[in-house]
């Protein structure tokens, strides 16, 4: 189950490829400006550290662990790079790694390199790092909170990269989004768990063995409750959007089969359903899906805040 996210040439239309090259070039340009005055000065020479850690990400992608016969989880490393180097330098490192994979190993095409960097480097690392920081802030900002945040972001980064890849293929006319999206999101929701577990374990290992290295990295910050709430809302919104893509694209396979075979009525409904079929009774179609999504978001934020309180009480005691 190799995460097949490196698009080869020929599968994206030239227009989409060029558009994503432009988007990637702009964001990498910003990253280059940001790293020239970075706050993460691990060692004096940023490019040397970035270069060697690029080789590290490359090598770390070889580590896999078998999930079942013939299926193994392995690392993409985007969020890990973002956590260790900061979002901007991490993005440059991932862009370099993806570029070298295309040039030297033919893993992904050249004209579509912009798209591949966008999906895995920009969405995965830049987006993932900000999600990780946000989640860590929302959880109370301790070291363990930041590692849990990175784990959650690692999962989200893999799933989002898969989603973006499929949408680009769909826009290019090389895949059918209504079939491809649930399939890709479903497979990568599993792969993402492997990514999250490895990321959390690696960061925990580094935090325990060499805490001094991590001192300068993603320093825990204090944030006001309002700010934390705002960040939580943004993240939960992202997750809710992804989840509703799932829900709308694949209207519950088992239910569909049951309906066809005519035994849907024979099934018992659940003792209680908060939002039956993700809709609110009395509201129609899209509006009710949106309201249900928002209510779900509030629940997620509540859970996040509760976990944050728990994390803080654990650090105090």
């Amino acid at each position, binding site marked *: 189950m190799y995460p*097949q996210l*490196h*698009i*080869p*040439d*020929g599968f994206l239309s030239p227009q989409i490829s060029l558009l994503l090259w432009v988007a990637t070039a702009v964001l*990498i340009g910003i990253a*280059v400006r940001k*790293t020239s005055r970075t706050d993460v000065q*691990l*060692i004096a*020479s940023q*490019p*040397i550290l*970035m*270069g*060697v*850690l*690029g*080789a*590290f990400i*490359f*090598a*770390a992608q*070889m*580590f896999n*662990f*078998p*999930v079942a016969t013939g299926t193994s*989880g392995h*690392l993409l490393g985007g969020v890990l790079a973002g956590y*260790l180097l900061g979002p901007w330098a991490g993005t*440059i490192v991932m*862009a*370099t*790694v993806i570029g070298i994979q295309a*040039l*030297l190993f*033919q893993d992904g*095409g*050249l*004209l579509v390199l912009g798209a591949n960097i966008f999906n895995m480097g920009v969405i995965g690392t830049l987006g993932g790092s900000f999600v990780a920081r946000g989640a860590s802030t929302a959880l109370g900002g301790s070291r363990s909170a930041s590692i849990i945040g990175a784990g959650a972001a690692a999962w989200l980064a893999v799933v989002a990269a898969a989603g973006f890849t499929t949408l680009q293929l769909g826009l290019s*006319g*090389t*895949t*059918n989004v209504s*079939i491809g999206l649930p399939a890709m999101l479903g497979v990568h929701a599993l792969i993402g768990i*492997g990514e999250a*577990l*490895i*990321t*959390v*374990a*690696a*960061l925990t*290992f*580094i935090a325990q*063995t*060499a805490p001094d*290295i991590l001192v300068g990295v993603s320093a825990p910050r204090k944030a006001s409750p309002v700010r934390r709430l705002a960040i939580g809302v943004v993240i939960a919104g992202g997750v809710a959007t992804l989840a509703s893509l799932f829900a709308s694209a694949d209207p519950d396979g088992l239910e569909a089969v049951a309906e066809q075979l005519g035994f849907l009525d024979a099934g018992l409904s659940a003792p209680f359903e908060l939002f039956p079929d993700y809709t609110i009774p009395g509201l129609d179609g899209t509006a009710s899906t949106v309201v249900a999504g928002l209510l779900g978001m509030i629940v997620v934020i509540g859970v996040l805040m509760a976990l944050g309180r728990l994390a803080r009480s654990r650090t105090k005691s």
Partner: protein
Amino acid sequence: MQPRSVGRDARAAVITTLAFVTAVALLPPGSYLALLLAWLLLTFAGALLGISPGHLARRGLVALPFVVAAVPIVFLRNDELLWAGNIGPLTLQISGAGLRIALTALLKAWISVQASVLLLVLASPPSIVTALRRMRLPDVIATSAGLTIRYLELLRDEARRMLRARTARSASPVGVGRERIGGTIAWRARTTGNLVGSLFLRAYSRAQRIEEAAASRGATGSLSVGTMPDADPRLTIKVIGVLALVLVLTLAGALLPRL
């Protein structure tokens, strides 16, 4: 094989490859004759460089598995139906238009991979980075890419040794008779994460040593000093030739009959 242009200006090779891949990507679906022309040009260039077409063709197969992404449109598009029928409870149809898109994408991917294989025959990885730096790639990226290439094999070798050590200690995680050796999935993930973590620490301390060594020799954090080879004097002529090639391929795509 030793790349031809070690220490030479590789800009012409890089530009040719990018232009060729772009020209191939621009071909409309179904232009098999134009794709055949592109492939003939490529294998001819390969033969001139001493690479057999069979070897190139096999290297091109790397991109093959991605065609899975294009499979749905073969069955889901409703135009130019070639066949429709029932297989057991399933109703299936095969769309000619969908088949054409999938096949064209597959051929384009196969040809493009061969083009980038040829680039590596023409130019060594460091000379490609130098060429890209000449083409205004930001210095941070060029330096970082150069060092990544430089330390890639070293760290991959380290990773290989760590994996061998893990295999030697925990045996195969899923054994012959499907008996599970080596703990739960979470345990296996943690072991893998620990390997990643310790590889990071080794890479980090290596970066520190490189930094100290470089600083003691007066380095400023960029590899760009004094490493540029002489500029290719015939670059302009070569680029004009490349543009002509792109034009020929695009015209072939527009004029040759499509199936």
